[in-house]
């Protein structure tokens, strides 16, 4: 097989893996949007915040250290202990649940029944707040995150493809893990939403508040649950992205990549988020590989958005979104 085709295949596979990571972020958006009609702009920042908190807890960082030191003239930075990954992940999940409760209690509880655009604005505010809050709490240094996920080239695939084609594919172990985790997560979420009592209550609340109340569903409980779920998805995405490229504030920008993913997949569809993520992931890598050299590269920065724009023109509801038909 010619070398170009082999490279192309490798790029394609890596695109799929990147796509999975995009899908992970997009999934958080879809979840909240389906359950509450809120387009949560802060999903990306939530992933960042989760990753920051996780690293902070693992390294035994003192939260708000800078603020404390500046106010009291002390010099505390670390507790001097390390928390094992599993414990830290559980603690971080606790923080995300607390955050979900706070977000509902102080913001969205008061905005029930408002226009979607107002809810959207509130999430933009939340995004900026969380970014600043994360900075004050954990500092703004770039940190390494290592929860024990294997990283680096997967030897088995390298060897297998070398024997097969005479050319070893470079597939990152971390990407394989991300794919595995994302698949599990999606299956679990779908099963939970479709077949569990709380999932049914969640769909009910999304559909009709009044009716939900009349069958005895506590709206507050469901909203906090939904935001906690989004926090959980954010944590998973934060772990994957943080391990891959370090925990840094530019992580919140991956939320922007989720937008074209959602436009492609449709804002209300979980399968849509996945397929959309894969298409964007593969699309931008393949486009860079094929067209990139002709136009001087750097197409990855804009390809996703242009693709989304084309979709908006021809299929505004996305691949899997519900078509809105207004009855006259």
């Amino acid at each position, binding site marked *: 097989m010619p070398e170009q085709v082999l490279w192309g295949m490798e790029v394609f596979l890596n695109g799929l893996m990147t796509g999975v990571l995009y899908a992970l972020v997009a999934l958080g958006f879809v979840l909240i949007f389906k359950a509450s009609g809120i387009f949560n702009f802060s999903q990306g920042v939530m992933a960042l915040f989760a990753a920051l908190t996780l690293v902070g807890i693992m390294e035994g960082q003192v939260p708000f250290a800078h603020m404390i030191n500046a106010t009291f003239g002390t010099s505390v930075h670390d507790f001097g202990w390390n928390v094992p990954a599993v414990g830290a992940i559980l603690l971080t999940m606790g923080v995300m649940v607390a955050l979900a409760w706070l977000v509902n209690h102080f913001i969205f509880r008061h905005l029930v029944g408002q226009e979607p655009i107002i809810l959207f604005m509130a999430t933009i505010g939340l995004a900026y707040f969380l970014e600043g809050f994360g900075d004050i709490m954990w500092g703004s240094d770039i940190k390494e995150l290592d929860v024990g996920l294997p990283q680096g080239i997967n030897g088995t695939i390298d060897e297998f493809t070398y024997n097969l084609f005479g050319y070893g594919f470079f597939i990152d172990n971390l990407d394989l893990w991300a794919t595995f985790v994302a698949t599990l997560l999606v299956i679990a979420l779908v099963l939970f939403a479709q077949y*569990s009592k709380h999932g*049914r209550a969640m*769909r009910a609340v999304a559909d*009709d508040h009044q009716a939900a*109340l*009349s*069958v*005895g569903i*506590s*709206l507050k409980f469901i909203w906090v649950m939904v935001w906690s779920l989004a926090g959980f998805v954010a944590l998973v995405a934060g772990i994957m992205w943080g391990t891959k490229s370090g925990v840094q504030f530019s992580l919140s920008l991956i939320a922007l990549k989720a937008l074209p993913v959602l436009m492609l997949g449709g804002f209300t569809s979980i399968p849509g988020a996945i397929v959309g993520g894969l298409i964007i992931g593969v699309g931008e890598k393949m486009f860079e590989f094929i067209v990139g050299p002709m136009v001087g590269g750097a197409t990855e920065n804009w390809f996703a958005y242009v693709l989304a724009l084309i979709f908006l023109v021809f299929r505004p509801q996305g691949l899997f979104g519900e078509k809105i038909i207004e009855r006259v």
Partner: protein
Amino acid sequence: MNQMTEQSYVTEDGRTIGGTLMEMRNISLRFGGVKAITDISFDIREGEIRAIIGPNGAGKSSMLNVISGFYVPQEGEVWFRGEKRPPMRPFEVARQGIARTFQNIALFEGMTVLDNVMTGRLNHMTTGLFSQAIWKGKAEAEELQNREVAEKTIDFLEIQHIRKTPVSRLPYGLKKRVELARALAAQPSLLLLDEPMAGMNVEEKEDMSRFILDVNDEFGTTIALIEHDMGVVMDLSDRVVVMDYGKKIGDGSPDEVRNNQAVIDAYLGVAHD
């Protein structure tokens, strides 16, 4: 207990009417300066079909919303099962065993009929979030058990053929029936129906009347319903409260109410002074 609790008795058609289940005492409800309900008292006895009737704007729906906790009255007390009810949110009222339907149908449009009816069982499912999430043992058994009740309710209301249909695709009359099924699946001790016959044709009205009577007869469910179609109500109910302009103008058996001058005036539209 209170003096309203009377001896139980047996109706002509052989149903047993028990003691007081719910009692409204001197309820007043205002929206700003508008008086929706003024000083109304009445009771609902176990096993009976109690109707609240009155012309449009009489405050009937407001009354139902007070019972189901959607509105909180400024004055008055709600007594349920011999106890004064503290101010409650609607979902808490529902958890006490009071189910309701809505005048403008409030179903979960995106969900199937079966799923809608299953939401009526939520209060009977006690497993926590964690065991639900991992779907172990109890959660699964509970789902099956409640599924059975839901299916029976569906059979009872003769909507088996649309079990898996999304509600949004159903015609109006069937939606009304699905809403009744959802309320009934909760096996409520008090079932509130807000204009169950509104917007139906004669045939659908007859069907609905039959279901209401069957529910009461078969399960002994206490039913309080609102209607402004006098004819239907008189045939269905054991006792009737008549409201007009937020006030109670009549209360008694259908015959008593029918011959009440104030009621006749209200329905014929005699000028109010």
